């Protein structure tokens, strides 16, 4: 399973939302993510990809769309 599928799966499981057709939509505006959800997502992504995601990175400007989250995860995997 690639990063994209895995991230979409996690979002689907956590928030019961299929975001595969809105990859560039702001997930906070769409009501999928909130502060609570962000922390849950961070913890799931950290466990799944064995990476460390700083909470300040998870800002509403940097990680606010599905595509940006996927990019962010890929970047952190390469560190």
């Amino acid at each position, binding site marked *: 399973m690639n990063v994209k599928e895995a991230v979409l799966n996690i979002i689907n499981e956590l928030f019961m939302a299929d975001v595969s057709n809105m990859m560039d939509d702001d997930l906070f505006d769409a009501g999928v993510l909130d502060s*609570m959800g962000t922390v849950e997502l961070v*913890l799931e992504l950290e466990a799944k990809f064995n990476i460390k995601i*700083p*909470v*300040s*990175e998870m800002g509403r400007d940097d990680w606010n769309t599905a595509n940006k989250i996927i990019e962010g995860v890929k970047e952190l995997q390469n560190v």
Partner: protein
Amino acid sequence: MMDWLKALPNLQPYGDPQYFVYLVVLLMPIVIAMFFGKRLKWYESIISLIFIVLMFAGTHWQQFIALCAYIIWQIIIVFSYAAYRKKADNKWIFYGAVFLDILPLAIVKLTPALTMGKSSIIGFLGISYLMFRSVGMLMETRDGVLKEFTFNQFLRFMLFMPTISSGPIDRFRRFTADYEQVPDRTRYLNMLEKAVYYLFLGFLYKFILSYIFGSLLLPNVEHMALARGGLINLPTIGVMYVYGFDLFFDFAGYSLFAVAISYIMGIETPMNFNKPFLAKNLKDFWNRWHMSLSFWFRDFVFMRLVMVFMRHKIFKNRNVTSGVVYVLNMTIMGFWHGVTWYYVSYGIFHGLGMVINDWWLRYKRRHKEQLPKNKFTEMLAIFITFNVVMLSFLLFSGFLDKLWFHNY
């Protein structure tokens, strides 16, 4: 030694129309230079320093010394921690640094509660807003997203003149990026246009509307309410609305000035208010009211506490976790306003309000089909939120302390 400072006239930020005349005249060279794509770093620093000195001049001179001492304290903590963080990342060192960073403010907030209302000698106007900025830097340094910063950048961010006394609370990385990059001419003209609009809107809010509510109406309704006495009476309901509107127009007016002056200096300081009385629920309200503070609490208190609670699996249920942290977060905010029963209960009130709000939002999501959703329900939601918020402001105002316990 400090006689020179005592002899200078005191100039409170945005206090009277004269302040704006001085400010605009002295900012002119900055505007012209910005127009040609240059930032007059030295001139800007000197002007900022003059206004900061005048803010604490005259009878407030002791606060100036407190400010200087506080800045030295902050420099030591933030730079030592940044140096340490390059080598290691022990969480107790981090907690220690945050504790020491908050300590002076905690002393300032606790002193009046412990000494029958005396204020601490280490306090000064704007101390909390400096603390918010530097704690934010410590957190981002710990996270590793903030690595290098210079002494000048630190001082500039901490002591940014337009926002020094009461915010809005900016973030170091955002502020510094703005500062290092001069906006191009079209963008700068756009910012100037907004600045002029914000200044005049601010005049309307602060010098007209806040004057009507705060100086003309409020003393009268308060007097009527106190004359009636008892637990609650009709004029107290009047106090609630009048105080609420005064609070909004006063603080929103001030924030508009701070944002406008920042824009003139080429810095896009974040807005503090976004039509808060049109909020549809409490969560929405906190995304619109004193936003730079509530976002600070969201990012640096709420999310961090949720993280700690979830990592250590303190509660099994996510809704219990978020509920507990909402109450903690808001109660801490209440304590920050001041250690009095009414500020703290204002915080708890909003914490519990957020729990109820969250429960309702979940209920709504589960019963989407059964619940009506139209213009009327939306208006009703706004109406209920508005009144809940106003009720919380009555608590916040401290008026009940006068009405119930006769503490004047």
